[in-house]
């Protein structure tokens, strides 16, 4: 009872705190690179969030969402890094 009523809400609030910090850094990072780092970290935190949702619901197919989220976030970060250097995306 203590796990479902106290511990899991506390874990979710902790991860929401992480997301809030990342959104703060996205909103007023001094440079574009700061914003991109925060987007990358936000993607990784959301993967952990999906893992906690998997535990809460007991449905193992939610791990597919985490898998796809990790890969898509990686591709987006690489594309933004290339854009930052000044190359076009197909070079």
């Amino acid at each position, binding site marked *: *009872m203590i*796990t*479902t009523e106290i*511990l899991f809400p506390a*874990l979710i609030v*902790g*991860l929401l*705190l*992480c997301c809030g*910090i*990342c959104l*703060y*850094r996205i909103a007023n990072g001094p*440079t574009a*690179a*700061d914003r*991109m*780092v*925060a987007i*990358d*970290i936000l993607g*990784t*935190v959301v*993967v*952990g969030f999906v*893992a*906690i949702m*998997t*535990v809460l619901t*007991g449905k*193992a*197919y939610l*791990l*597919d969402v*985490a*898998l796809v989220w*990790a*890969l898509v*976030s*990686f591709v987006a*970060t*690489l594309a*933004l*890094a*290339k854009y*930052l*250097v*000044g190359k076009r995306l197909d070079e």
Partner: protein
Amino acid sequence: MNDPLTSYQIVGLTLIVFGVLFDISGCVGLVRLPDVYNRIQASTKCVVLGTALILLGAVVWLGSLHAILKGLLCILFILITSATAAHALSRAAHRSGVPLAERSVVNRYAEDQQGGRGAEEGVL
């Protein structure tokens, strides 16, 4: 409602709690450190370890074959892709001219690109 946890669930819950603590410490590094490179190095390492621990805890908690395969594959992808993304981001930031913090001591990559002392002696 007042069901006792099995030992697998206790181990998984402990891993998840430690993962969330690592995530929070990495995000504190993201907001407190002075420049881009410090933020990349602190937040990437802590958040990757934290998320891998959360996934491992979920795998231990669930315990079915699907969950084990997909969870371990997801941990592998996180470990590979996040390190690669952080490397590409820091390289792109340095090449696009993002300045280092005021308190930085050494900038070996700029010395190496300008053919400085490190490049002549072959010391990286």
